[in-house]
């Protein structure tokens, strides 16, 4: 799976060019750090902010963790019910389809009224963002279990919904659940900044970026936090892929690759 070094080097070239262009344009063309801070200034900011940064990352991960845990534990049981029982799907799907298009940020007022200004309110916004992708991919997995596998289970004594879900449908749907979770993590992460903007605490990447750095016009700090937000999401995604998809779904190789 390892790319040859030469190709790896090749894919680094455009990245370096972009960074160089950034530095040159910011430093010699625009020359206004309020509009575009220089790349070197941003890197230096990350170094200056390192202590704050750790606290903010931990706070954001806490919000993210609350949201993802809620989303996963609510979406999975509902996905099983919707994917496995046709009538549940018929009954619940219209409700889901009405709520789903509402942007997570529109839930902020309700989050404040219902939960208050605390970590759980931020978690709630992330929950709204992550819930639907997990739900939809997961119930699709349960709905698509091939009939022949269910019947094979039947003739081998695996009879009744509980056994069939446990031994046939759940293992079959696991890759879809993982995909949904991965997409959900992505959407959930996008909600982190907004979820911290409305004053649920006094730390967090989104809080710092918007409430502190932006109001003080410290654009190099803002961009530094943007980069951190991106890199962190990339790391989370890679970790998930490494520990869940590559380890758990060796059996899928023949199908997807």
């Amino acid at each position, binding site marked *: 799976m390892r790319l040859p070094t030469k190709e790896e080097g090749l894919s680094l070239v455009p990245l370096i060019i972009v960074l160089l262009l950034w530095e040159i344009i910011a430093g010699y063309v625009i020359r206004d750090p309020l509009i575009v801070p220089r790349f070197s200034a941003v890197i230096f900011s990350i170094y200056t902010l390192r202590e704050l940064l750790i606290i903010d990352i931990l706070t954001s991960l806490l919000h993210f963790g609350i949201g993802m845990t809620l989303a996963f534990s609510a979406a999975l049981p509902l996905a099983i019910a919707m994917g496995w029982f046709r009538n549940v799907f018929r009954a619940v799907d219209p409700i889901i389809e009405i709520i789903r298009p509402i942007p997570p940020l529109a839930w902020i007022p309700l989050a404040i009224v219902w939960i208050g200004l605390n970590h759980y309110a931020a978690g709630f916004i992330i929950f709204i963002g992550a819930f639907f992708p997990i739900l939809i991919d997961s119930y699709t997995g349960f709905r698509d279990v091939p009939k*022949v*596998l269910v*019947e*094979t*289970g*039947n*003739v*081998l*004594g*695996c*009879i009744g919904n509980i*056994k069939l879900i446990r*031994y*046939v449908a759940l*293992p*079959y749907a*696991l890759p879809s659940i993982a995909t949904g979770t991965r997409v959900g993590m992505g959407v959930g992460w996008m909600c982190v900044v907004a979820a911290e903007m409305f004053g649920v605490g006094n730390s967090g990447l989104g809080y710092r970026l918007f409430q502190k750095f932006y109001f003080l016009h410290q654009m190099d700090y803002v961009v530094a936090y943007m980069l951190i937000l991106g890199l962190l999401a990339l790391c989370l995604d890679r970790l998930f892929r490494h520990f869940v998809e590559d380890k758990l779904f*060796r*059996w*899928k*190789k*023949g*199908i997807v690759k």
Partner: protein
Amino acid sequence: MNHKLKLHNVTKEFQSEEVEIKALEDINLEVKPNEFLCIIGPSGCGKTTLLRMIAGLDYPSSGEIILDGDRVSGPSPDRGMVFQEFSLFPWRTVLKNIEFGLQIRGMKDKERREIAEKYLEFVGLQGFGNSYPYELSGGMKQRVAIARALATDPAILLMDEPFGSVDAQTRNVLQEELLEIWKRTKKTILFVTHSVDEAVYLADRVVVMSARPGRIIACRDIGIPRPRKRTSMEANEIREQLLMLLGSKHQK
């Protein structure tokens, strides 16, 4: 009791766009213990439906199916089934596929692993126990499916065109292996196929069905001693008769 399985006046109707379609009409059949019975017929004659009803995956509209004196009323591991399409659980290794029925029954890990290994050897796949289905060829997959169906020690083995999607050479090999397994396990086998050649090579007795409504139009003992030669005169003669039976019904 001189029969293992008995079908008594079995009829199956399907409702389709306000028309009632008779898929099977008045099927009466007795299968002896240890018998290797093949069912042949044109597509749409309901042979698969018949097998599915014996497995308990479908229900007759009227009539009854009796196995070892008990009326069949749903699926159960005492009727092993091998499907035409590949039916291995892709997330389970070969051994874990074979263990499935035993695991559901609640058997201990070590015990069921031993049994699974025995049946793995039965179908000649030692060394593939830890492979996943995607790593196997079509023929190997069906071998595993056979081992899995046998592992729960069913009273009867139902096979629905199990070799329909493998190439001709593999098919011949699998047929020989199946006869070997049949000799060793002394199972009663019901084997559905649309291949007259396959039926004549494998069966003690061949049941010929007609299409719409599905009826049994003939039962023919093969009577050629085993090992059989696929190209022998006797085999050719029986093949010809069976083909005629099928053909005459086709041209109507």
